[in-house]
């Protein structure tokens, strides 16, 4: 273990949960959830939720556009699916589920990463055609948010179903291949300057990185072809690979190479 | 629907069981199939002074339904929303079912014997070392006549103290004193029929729409039937009554004294009075002025015959010259033009005028005076004692008239208009009670405010409170609560639920309520209504008469109550009835009441009721040809009193810039101990609010439902604001309700009272209001 990126990452994930719970405890600096929120007076908005509201509701609220752009810019800079790796409470839970699955050794089936982009297309198409914001309706993220903020527990069954399938059938299938929000960020974060860098001559090909990476496909171009950076938008910037690399072949780059 | 022998025979088997114990059975129309096995009995409603008749449906020892009694002359089958849920008031989860005795800070269960022995020993101890005036009883206008009579006989005839008061002191005392000093007999000459027969109704400080719901619906029907009928609402607050009135006249608090005097000024100035009526029926008098407000403990104020000056009509006219309409406008805020107009209306020969009033006039530091002034209007214009043309003081409790006033459970009264100060009266009472006349003290007992202040002064050692909740309802109640909490007196409370008063009690006794016992109530229009016991009280709860008589036995006074177990109610009634016979207050034999939905006294020798008193048209005490005769007054003449304006005890100033007033809402009754147990009524109105004028609220940045802190010199309380709701006080006034036991709003009220009636003024004190 050369670095410990998992500590700040886990802290960020837990902070998000604490923020969402904070209004229940009578604190006032945070309101809302990951779809839209106020943090110390700064309005934040999920750009995908914004798109759905815009398409389906035919309303445009300029401050809302502003806060969606702000968040989009944030993830554009951090790149990839940073949201999935650092922020999303579903990510946190399925990550823990993954630990359990490994112990059980079940559900090795994987689905391709591209499916999440199709899933995004489906969501946008649905809202355009029917006015139903499909992702906001089915989103396990929203379900967790409301489970925490409003103690609305029944819909957590959806999350339980996802966990069950992920553990017994297909490894992290929701986050990897089905979540439209993941698909959205994988497109948005494709061109970020913040990337995992690879120094080929240090690599011992121990494959430790592949074992910890939730989306191991993104490492293939580097490991197989010697690409100097992980460029795929599906990278969740969890830096588990960096943590796992004994040879220090993997690092964090802040510039395009 | 009358109760006949046939009814008994026709009654079902279940009903027969009832009949066996003496409960008459009535069967509402069309109520057979759906309500199999329910036995119906008649009773007056437990709540307000209107006296609606209800049918009580009993099945399996439980009330399963109540409904308005179609045979009831007052309500013809209707009820207000409180009455609709009447039976639920008995079935709250926290009914008191066993006697409780204080052990330190805890109330522990006890047997009746333990509790009553303890009470008797405490009373004996106090009497032995401090005399009989160191003990007291505080009762209620919700007491049945039997309960009030038992209390009166026990305290006045047995223990020998006049320290007996009803809570009616807080609501009707001013009306009582004015009835007595004007007509020589308590209670109105008119009745509810006047609401159907008149054409002009002037409301002085009354919100009939909420406080007398079914009666108001009757009054409005007169308006609907006869488009010429006029309803004028004179008040300090716009209410639901205002909404249905033809005209609203805004008045400043205490402005009634000035406004009525100015109206009389115009009547006299323009010779609008009825000279012949005045000559024949009216005396003019001037009483004692510059009266105090009762704010000091033990302050004594009496208007003795030596203080009263007889006036001639001309002298009176001269004295009234000062009260010009302009002067009236300056003080009351009612425009001089309006005052002139009201004088014209009051003296309009083509109109049948009725004045109606309630707590705005009675709960007034010069309440007797305002009552007097209203009578002056009617006496000077001769608009009195005629069908459809009368002044009518509306009462608030189901038996404020029947029990508190007729039985005379006040500290100066004896049954049937008699007083303890009068030797002949004491002799008559002693005669009927079979006791030594010297046993009845000639010393007027402590009136309500003094009674509770005497606890604080440690002068009163024992008090027994029944059927009322003074530690929520009294003004400046925090002083009194502190005294009670300091255990300055031994306090017994008989009630059906835990209340703010049982909280401070040393002994709590569980009482039977309403149809859990037999009883008689008397309503506003002199209607005496009887009911039978229909269900058993819960647990060990016992009725108040039983509690008092058991106590009396322990005090060695059991001989005062020699009634048989079976004939208890009838025997006591017939004894009480002796007071009323031949003095213009005649009541009927007990059985008569079992058959009818009440009778209005004086009941004539032929058993018929009297609708209008003092007139040959209806009153058997006035001979044919006598026309109108105020036969209870010394020279058969009523008194017109000269009563000037005097300011209220406390007025708004820079520090406390608002007038504060407390009152009622339709959904809840008094301190809410019964209606508060009805979930539906709590759903409808859950708590007290503070009503403000929208402009006052806007100026202070207060929005509807904002929390507002209201502070007087005596206390402070936080309430949600209610703006543009059911009531809107005039600018500079705020109003709240006193039913909410979580908000002791009356602790803000000043404990000033009318020096003549000793009735506190809940309607006027100064507060400051701040957004909380």
């Amino acid at each position, binding site marked *: 273990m050369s670095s410990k990126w998992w500590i700040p990452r886990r802290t960020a994930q837990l902070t998000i949960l604490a923020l969402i719970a904070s209004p229940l405890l009578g604190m006032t600096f945070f309101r809302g959830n990951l779809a839209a929120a106020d943090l110390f007076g700064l309005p934040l908005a999920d750009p995908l939720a914004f798109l759905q509201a815009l398409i389906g509701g035919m309303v445009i609220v300029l401050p809302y556009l502003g806060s969606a752009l702000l968040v989009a810019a944030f993830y554009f800079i951090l790149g990839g699916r940073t949201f999935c790796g650092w922020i999303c409470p579903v990510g946190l839970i399925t990550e823990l589920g993954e630990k359990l699955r490994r112990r059980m050794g079940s559900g090795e089936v994987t689905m391709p990463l591209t499916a999440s982009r199709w899933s995004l297309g*489906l969501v946008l198409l649905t809202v355009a055609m029917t006015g139903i914001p499909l992702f906001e309706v089915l989103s396990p993220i929203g379900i967790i948010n409301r489970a925490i903020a409003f103690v609305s527990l029944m819909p957590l069954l959806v999350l339980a179903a996802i966990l069950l399938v992920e553990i017994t059938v297909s490894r992290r299938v929701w986050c990897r291949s089905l979540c439209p929000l993941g698909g959205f960020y994988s497109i948005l974060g494709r061109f970020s300057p913040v990337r995992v860098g690879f120094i080929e001559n240090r690599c011992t090909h121990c494959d430790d990185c592949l074992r910890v990476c939730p989306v191991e496909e993104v490492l293939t171009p580097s490991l197989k072809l010697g690409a100097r950076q992980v460029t795929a938008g599906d990278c969740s910037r969890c830096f588990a690979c960096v943590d796992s690399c004994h040879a220090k072949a993997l690092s964090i780059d802040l510039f395009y190479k | 629907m009358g109760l006949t022998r046939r009814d008994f025979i026709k009654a079902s088997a279940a009903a027969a069981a009832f009949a066996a114990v003496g409960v008459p059975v009535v069967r509402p129309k069309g109520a057979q199939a759906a309500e199999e096995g329910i036995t119906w009995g008649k009773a007056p409603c437990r709540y307000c002074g209107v006296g609606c008749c209800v049918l009580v449906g009993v099945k399996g020892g439980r009330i399963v339904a109540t409904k308005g009694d179609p045979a009831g002359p007052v309500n013809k089958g209707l009820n207000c929303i409180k009455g609709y849920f009447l039976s639920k008031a008995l079935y709250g989860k926290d009914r008191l079912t066993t006697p409780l005795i204080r052990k330190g800070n805890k109330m522990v269960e006890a047997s009746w014997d333990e509790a009553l022995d303890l009470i008797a020993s405490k009373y004996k101890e106090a009497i032995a070392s401090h005399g009989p005036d160191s003990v007291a009883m505080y009762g209620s206008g919700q007491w049945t006549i039997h309960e009030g009579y038992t209390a009166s006989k026990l305290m006045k005839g047995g223990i020998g103290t006049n320290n007996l008061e009803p809570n009616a002191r807080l609501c009707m005392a001013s009306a009582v004193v004015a009835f007595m000093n004007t007509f020589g007999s308590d209670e109105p000459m008119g009745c509810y029929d006047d609401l159907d027969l008149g054409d002009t109704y002037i409301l002085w400080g009354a919100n009939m729409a909420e406080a007398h719901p079914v009666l108001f619906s009757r009054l409005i029907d007169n308006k609907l039937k006869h488009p010429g009928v006029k309803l004028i609402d004179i008040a300090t607050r716009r209410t639901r009554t205002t909404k249905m009135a033809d005209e609203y006249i805004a008045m400043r608090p205490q402005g009634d004294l000035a406004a009525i005097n100015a109206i009389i000024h115009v009547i006299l100035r323009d010779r609008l009075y009825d000279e012949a009526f005045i000559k024949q029926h009216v005396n003019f008098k001037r009483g004692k002025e510059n009266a105090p407000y009762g704010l000091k403990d033990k302050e004594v104020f009496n208007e003795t015959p030596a203080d009263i000056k007889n006036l001639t009509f001309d002298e009176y006219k001269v004295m009234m010259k000062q009260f010009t309409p302009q002067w009236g406008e300056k003080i009351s805020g009612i425009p001089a033009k309006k005052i002139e107009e009201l004088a014209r209306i009051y003296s309009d020969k083509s109109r049948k005028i009725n004045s109606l009033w309630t707590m705005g006039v009675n709960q007034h530091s010069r309440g007797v005076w305002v009552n007097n002034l209203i009578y002056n209007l009617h006496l000077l214009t001769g608009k009195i004692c005629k069908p459809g043309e009368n002044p009518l003081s509306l009462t608030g409790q189901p038996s404020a008239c029947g029990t508190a006033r007729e039985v005379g459970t006040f500290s100066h009264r004896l049954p049937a208009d008699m007083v303890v100060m009068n030797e002949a009266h004491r002799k008559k009472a002693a005669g009927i009670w079979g006791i030594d006349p010297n046993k009845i003290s000639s010393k007027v007992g402590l009136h309500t405010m003094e009674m509770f202040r005497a606890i604080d002064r440690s002068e009163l050692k024992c008090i027994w409170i029944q059927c009322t909740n003074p530690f929520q309802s009294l003004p400046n109640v925090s002083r009194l609560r502190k005294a009670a909490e300091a255990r300055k007196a031994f306090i017994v409370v008989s009630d059906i639920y835990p209340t703010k008063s049982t909280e401070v009690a040393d002994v709590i006794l569980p009482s039977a309520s309403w149809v859990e016992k037999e009883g008689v109530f008397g309503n506003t229009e002199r209607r005496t209504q009887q009911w039978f016991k229909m269900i058993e009280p819960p647990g060990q709860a016992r009725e108040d008469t039983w509690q008092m008589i058991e106590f009396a036995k322990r005090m060695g006074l059991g001989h005062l109550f020699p009634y048989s177990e079976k004939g208890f109610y009838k025997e006591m009634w017939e004894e009480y009835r002796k007071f009323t016979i031949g003095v213009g207050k005649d009541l009927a034999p007990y059985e008569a009441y079992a058959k009818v939905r009440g009778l209005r006294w004086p009941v004539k020798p032929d058993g018929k009721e009297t609708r209008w008193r003092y007139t040959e048209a209806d009153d058997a005490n006035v001979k044919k040809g006598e026309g109108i005769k105020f036969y209870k007054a010394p020279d058969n003449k009523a008194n017109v009193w000269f009563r000037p304006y005097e300011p209220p005890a406390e007025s708004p100033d820079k520090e406390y810039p608002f007038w504060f007033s407390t009152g009622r809402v339709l959904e809840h009754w008094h301190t809410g101990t019964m209606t508060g147990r009805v979930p539906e009524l709590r759903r409808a109105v859950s708590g007290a609010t503070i009503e403000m004028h929208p402009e006052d609220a806007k100026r202070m940045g207060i929005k509807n439902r904002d929390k507002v802190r209201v502070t007087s010199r005596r206390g402070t309380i936080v309430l949600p604001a209610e703006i543009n709701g059911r009531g809107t006080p005039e600018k500079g006034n705020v109003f709240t309700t006193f039913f909410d036991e979580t908000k002791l709003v009356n602790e803000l009220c000043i404990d000033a009272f009318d020096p003549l009636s000793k009735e506190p003024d809940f309607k006027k004190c100064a507060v400051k209001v701040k957004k909380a």
Partner: protein
Amino acid sequence: MDSETTCSGITRRQFLKGSAITPLTLILAGTGVATVYLRHADAQGFTLRPPGAIAEKRFLAACVRCGKCAQACPYLSIKMAGGEAGVGIGTPVIVPREIPCYLCSDLPCVKVCPSGALDKKLEDIEKIRMGTAVIIDRESCLSIRGLRCEVCYRQCPLIDKAIVIEPRHNTRTGEHTIMEPVVRKEKCVGCGICEKSCVLPKPVIVVQKTVETQKDSYEF
């Protein structure tokens, strides 16, 4: 929901490669559940939304389910719908019989709505149109039966505007007034306080969807 089967069509290649049967099943199941949801939501007909909510169909899309309106509501009137609301899951609802809207004059819920689902142009509480109160059971209404109830009227925050009393002679007793509460549709904001306060076990006055008054040329 047909489009979701299209989605499974997209993944056919992977399916043919094998081992994708479960995800496909998952999607099918999801579609099924969602369809049931949708039907259910339709069947409910009317949901009372917070003040300023735009037309229901657009509201369902415009609302991002962030819950800020519910967090802003000082009376906890606004609740977040659960699965029973179908496509409306996570949207704000008001159940008047539990806690109605108390019409805060500063409209905190509207103020915090980020997405325009609650229209910020709304500033005057009297212009709110969440729905319209309707007396649905005249036979049971105590006031119409002649009793002095009128609780809904006295509790109405727009007393004498949105609910008025129309008195009429009670022919049954011959001497009383029936004080009938009448909803003035053009003034009713649909806050539901009347529905909350109705004393009967099933409220006889309830808030329903506001129906636009039909206009025609007939005048008299």
